[in-house]
């Protein structure tokens, strides 16, 4: 009887593990957001970071601040102090200032319904794949006040600021099973067509959005690479310490029988 109870507990535990495994696979398949596209971030590619900084200034900086970054920290992506003064500063800002946005938060709320978030840590909060996917997914949607929508942040208040570069994309719709209820069919976006051309072709636009993503990744931790470098040194040192400590311990424990 006791043995059977114990077996029952084992069985129940196994069922729970099975349940959890089911949940792990179940969760992934039923997300309504499309899978993320991979961004290729590379903090050593200074050219990309500089292009990204320029694009950020041209398209993003009107609404989104980068208030944890100082202008003079842009020297870390290879810009000289003169470059920064000439290309990045505004008439009222100095190199030591933080990159705060000109738009007043209260006005922003009035105009957009929500204040555009500061982007200093967006790469850490959402991940670079998300940002890249997001920038590549804007499509025409006449039902929205801005005329644009995005599958990665549905009904965003943000318009497609890069539309002149990409051109306008219109969704191709097909009826597909509703993820929430497989018995129903709902019109689903299966792809995009380019209705009007932009300044860049597909590869060029992908490079632009990748550069912006790369720049935001840099901005989330400007000297990330030095952390890795220091890390190798610290770990090598600790390996040595552990080795010496092991030998010392073994030496003492020879006394113990």
């Amino acid at each position, binding site marked *: 009887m006791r043995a059977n109870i114990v077996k029952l507990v084992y069985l129940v535990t196994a069922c729970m593990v099975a349940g959890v495994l089911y949940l792990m696979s179940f969760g992934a398949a039923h997300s309504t957001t499309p899978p993320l596209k991979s961004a290729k971030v590379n903090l050593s590619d200074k050219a990309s970071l500089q292009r990204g900084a320029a694009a950020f200034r041209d398209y993003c900086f009107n609404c989104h601040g980068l208030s944890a970054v100082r202008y003079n920290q842009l020297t870390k992506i290879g810009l000289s102090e003169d470059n920064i003064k000439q290309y990045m500063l505004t008439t009222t800002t100095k*190199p030591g200032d933080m990159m705060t946005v000109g738009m007043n938060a209260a006005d922003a709320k009035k105009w957009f319904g929500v204040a555009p978030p500061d982007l200093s840590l967006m790469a850490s909060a959402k991940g670079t794949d998300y940002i890249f996917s997001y920038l590549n997914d804007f499509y025409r949607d006449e039902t929205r006040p801005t005329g644009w929508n995005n599958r990665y942040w549905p009904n965003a208040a943000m318009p497609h600021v890069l539309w002149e570069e990409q051109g306008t994309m219109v969704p191709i719709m097909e009826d597909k099973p509703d993820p929430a209820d497989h018995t129903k069919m709902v019109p689903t976006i299966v792809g995009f067509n380019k209705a009007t051309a932009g300044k860049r072709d597909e590869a060029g636009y992908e490079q632009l959005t990748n550069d912006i993503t790369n720049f935001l990744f840099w901005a989330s931790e400007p000297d990330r690479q030095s952390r890795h470098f220091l890390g190798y040194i610290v770990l090598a*040192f*600790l390996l*040595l310490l552990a080795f*010496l400590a092991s030998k010392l311990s073994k030496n003492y424990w020879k006394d113990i029988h």
Partner: protein
Amino acid sequence: MSDQNPKELNEERRKLLIATGGVSALGAAAFVTPMVASFAPSVKAKAGGAPVEVDIAALKPGEQIVTEWRGKPVWVVRRTEEMTAKLSAHNNDLADPKSEKPYSMPLPEYCNNEFRCRPEHKDVMVMVGVCTHLGCSPEGKFKEGGGGSLPEAWPGGYLCPCHGSTFDLAGRVFKNKPAPQNLDVPPYMFVSDTKIIIGKDEKGEA
């Protein structure tokens, strides 16, 4: 292990203790480094101490602009020709006429002359308005001649209200006053004839 001999064991123990101890000490120092480093002025503090630009286009002879650099008042005074010319006349009344004993920052080499300023613009005097006694900010007393606590032969300069120290129009302290040293002269340079930048010179930012 092969070493069974207690003497060998002890020898090894000693060596290992020294080696491990040494490496641990290095480790402890490394661990403490970010803590000690965090005490140093941060980027924000250093940005707050960045050089300051001053426009002197409207500065007339005998007038003074007060600006701020690193939290302290900095005076930019345009001496009249007469004021500048008379600077060496009262050298005997000064405690350190040749500015050999600086207060908190070294005198920039381009100011090591009788005017204590850049010779190409010998009328423009830049000095830190902090009394070298206990740190009050002296008042400008540019008019010549005595009156109040000022001596008869007063050439024009500054009087500190706290304990009565006096300084001339080149920031040099008079003898027998509580303040021991001349006023500091910060590094500065002319970006144009009408604009100076304080806290920066040919050598870079201070």
